[in-house]
């Protein structure tokens, strides 16, 4: 039986519950898109997109300040994807002249710093005071990571009754990219652009209903 126990132990080594953890920070990236099933996407929608990316958690305790150097490129990537759907953009002059777009597109960002504290004991010690007959203090530590989310929200602008004041708008489509922020801001920027492309790639209905195949 003793031999058998050793064999079982040997066989048990190497068995893990959750093998194959992520090896790259980009593997934490996720892109989620949600559509309003009641909104009819047609082939020729017009949109208006303010030239600002709004940080929506600026006043929160865990908020971190984000760089603004790449805002223009990020908005350009969103714009090019919207135009690729066959949509047309209204500019500030069009709005000032009283034109109403089908959709208002907002770009929002959220960036946080999260710290998680942990406590650990030497192997076999569950009690922090007595361990193998000795006092052995627990080991404390912390892990900090930064996470960011980017949102593109398209809402029906036809519901705007009082421009400049808050209105409850019907959201037609929204895309969100979430990921862990790296120290390398260049990597964050590239991953965000890829994420924006992915939002539109997984939303083919934005360019209107798929034509029925010809018989």
């Amino acid at each position, binding site marked *: 039986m003793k*031999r058998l126990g050793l064999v079982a132990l040997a*066989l048990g080594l190497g068995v893990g519950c959750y093998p194959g953890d992520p090896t790259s920070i980009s593997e*934490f990236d*996720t892109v*989620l898109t949600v559509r309003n099933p009641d909104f009819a996407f047609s082939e020729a929608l017009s949109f208006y997109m303010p030239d600002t990316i709004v940080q929506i958690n600026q006043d929160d305790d865990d908020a971190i300040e984000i760089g603004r150097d790449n805002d223009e490129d990020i908005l350009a990537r969103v714009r090019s994807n919207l135009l690729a759907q066959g949509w047309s953009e209204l500019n500030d002059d069009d709005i000032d002249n009283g034109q109403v777009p089908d959709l208002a597109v907002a770009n929002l960002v959220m960036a946080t710093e999260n710290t998680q504290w942990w406590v650990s004991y030497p192997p076999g010690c569950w009690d922090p005071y007595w361990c193998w007959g000795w006092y052995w203090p627990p080991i404390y530590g912390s892990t900090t990571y930064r996470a960011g989310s980017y949102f593109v929200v398209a809402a029906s602008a036809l519901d705007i009754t009082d421009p400049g004041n808050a209105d409850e708008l019907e959201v037609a489509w929204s895309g969100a990219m979430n990921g*862990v922020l790296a120290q390398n801001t260049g990597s964050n920027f590239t991953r965000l652009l890829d994420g924006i492309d992915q939002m539109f790639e997984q939303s083919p209905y934005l360019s209107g209903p798929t034509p029925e195949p010809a018989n």
Partner: protein
Amino acid sequence: MKKIAIVAAAALVLGATGEARAQEWFWGGSYSMSLPLANTKDFNEGFSFRGVTIEGRKLISENFSTGLSFGWHVMNDVRTGTIELDNAAAFGTWYTYTNSFPLFVNAHYYLGQPGGIRPFLGANVGTSIYEQRAEVGQVAFTEDKWRFAVAPEAGFVIPLGWYVRGFVSARYHYMTGSPTQQYLSFNVGIASN
């Protein structure tokens, strides 16, 4: 008279030993590999080399045993892609893990002759603690379920020494529930009494 007593004692001892051998327990451990099938394959595809099985079998006769079996079989997969939901879609790198802990009572029938290589057929019946976990981004979804499980089995016992047997077998694991789960496990191990 003395000779008769010695012969009688020897006969008793040999008889008792023979009885003991027919009733003895064999305990063994095996390295288990898994091949997911059907719904299990949809969740995590690919052959897994992570698993272990511990079991005990009691010989009721030369050709028949009953016993117990406990296993820990791990399957995992990594996929990058989009999952379509109702009016939503999610893209990411999905890490999926299955941990199956089958706990069986079983019966086996052995062909061939004692001392030689013996093919066997078996039936395992019991339960399985079945955990599925999917991780994407910074989110994880886990589902644990107890499932009724059966596992027909076929294999060979190979004599390696006086007390030691090697064995190889294949089990088809079927677990009830919605959806059902299925996989094959291939076991290579040794047993001793």
